């Protein structure tokens, strides 16, 4: 099974990125600075003052930052896996022209998955660097947060690819954003412990990948102990969503592009 075509599909995405990387990278730095300053320092000063600290014995900014990091990976994955993919599939027909060459559908899919990972990695590293500047990373082991965050992005991006492959127009994207991405951003442990929520929201949070990503990333940057069993469950959920998403996405691409 030849995968050389996947590398060229990635190369094409990098050519496109080369045109916009400066602006895109600046945003990747500014956005976490704004969030951490406003919510971590500003809002955090209302929540924790003096010796009274909110959660897990750390300043609110340090608690918030890993949650936002994982949530940013989710949002980046959502951005990259919806409109740009449907455009290449349906509106600009870029995939049609690629598939007139020896490149196969699976190579197109895997190339786009590779680009998704690269894109999430860029955003993750920028965010992580800002966290270091804000002293929100408590141990060198915090570096583990980078691959864990990228995995969280993949756990969303891969199933979203499968979803996009079944869309005939863009109305489904608004629904996915409104009913999955935004609620998870608010409820999946980014801003406060999930245990504070009513049970129905807790269930919603734990059956989707973000809460698991947040839990792992937070344990990494705060260097807080985590039960091996819990860590294994979190990791399994993220890997499961990624693996099943890749399988379904590949099938979706094959069906859609072989019409």
């Amino acid at each position, binding site marked *: 099974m030849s995968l050389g*075509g996947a590398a060229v599909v990635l190369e094409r995405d990098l*050519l496109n990125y080369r045109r916009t990387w400066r602006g895109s990278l600046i945003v990747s730095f500014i956005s976490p600075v704004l969030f951490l300053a406003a919510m971590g320092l500003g809002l955090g000063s209302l929540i924790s003052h003096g010796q009274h600290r909110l959660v897990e014995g750390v300043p609110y900014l340090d608690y918030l930052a890993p949650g936002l990091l994982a949530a940013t990976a989710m949002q980046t994955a959502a951005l990259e896996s919806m409109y740009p993919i449907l455009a290449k599939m349906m509106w600009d027909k870029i995939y049609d022209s690629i598939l007139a060459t020896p*490149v196969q559908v699976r190579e197109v899919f895997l190339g786009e998955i590779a680009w998704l990972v690269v894109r999430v990695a860029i955003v993750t590293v920028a965010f992580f660097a800002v966290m270091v500047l804000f002293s929100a990373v408590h141990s060198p082991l915090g570096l583990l947060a980078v691959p864990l965050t990228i995995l969280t992005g993949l756990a969303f991006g891969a199933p979203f690819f499968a979803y996009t492959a079944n869309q005939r127009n863009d109305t489904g994207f608004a629904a996915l954003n409104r009913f999955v991405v935004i609620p998870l951003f608010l409820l999946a442990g980014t801003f406060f412990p999930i245990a504070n929520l009513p049970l129905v929201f807790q269930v919603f949070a734990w059956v989707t990948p973000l809460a698991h990503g947040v839990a792992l990333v937070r344990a990494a940057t705060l260097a807080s102990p985590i039960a091996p069993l819990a860590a294994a469950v979190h990791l399994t959920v993220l890997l499961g969503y990624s693996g099943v998403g890749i399988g379904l996405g590949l099938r979706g691409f094959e069906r859609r592009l072989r019409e």
Partner: protein
Amino acid sequence: MEAVQTPSRSLIHARGLVKRFGSFTAVDGIDFDVEPGEAFGFLGPNGAGKTSTMRMIGCVSPVSGGSLRVLGMDPAVDGARIRARLGVVPQADTLDLEISVEDNLFIYGRFFGLSRARARQRARELLEFVQLTDRARDDVEPLSGGMKRRLVIARGLVNEPDLLLLDEPTTGLDPQARHLVWDRLYRLKQRGVSQVLTTHYMDEAEQLCDRLVVMDKGRIVAAGSPRELIDRYSTREVLELRFPADARISLDGLPDGLAERVEVLPDRVLLYTADGEAAIAGVHQRGLVPVSSLIRRSTLEDVFLRLTGRSLVD
């Protein structure tokens, strides 16, 4: 004419070729062969099955029935190997709007497995060939329709294909842009690049094709060179007459002695004859006074009208 060629020498060999979409049959059992070095055309109105046929040849749409060999191989088995040797110019431009004009050619070369250096070199050669060198670094979007078409043709040549597939190469272009495209295609043919093209323009088929088949409703209704088809299905000359809109003209008996055949179209009457001058004299002799009259050579348009009873472009 040569003796029947063996299938293995033909670039394309199709027998009883069928394409179905659900219960709709787009291509209904067609036979044809395309030989090395020739320009072969599919002529027909929209919906005749031309594009479906092209997509099967291009190995992007599976065959529903019959047999198809492209470059001696089976598209169902060797799709990628066949595509490696084809150049495709699709009906819609499908250019990559997110990267520059030159990068469109560069990355396409990469999809065919060219090295970066070779793909870059090839992109520059082809920009030269289609006269777009000065637009190399520009975006694709602001290019004119004719420029985009030339860029798509250049893209189809990036792998130095043995066979170029062109689906309606000049549809939607103004006359000047069309002639520029035709000129480039003619040069390619002189270099020995075989071409298969679809068109619903008669003049395009006459300009570009050595041999063509006329398609209608998924079937081939005639085959031959443009000249042969005109000789076989039409007359040397055509007399076109226009009458006042409200005139009640009796055309009964008009063919007698004047024309081999008469076609009455909504806006004009066509008389098929070997001698247009004699025919117009005869029309006047019978006391008919057309608003205008025109004597012209027969074209493939007339062939199509004869074969199907319908005009090609409505």
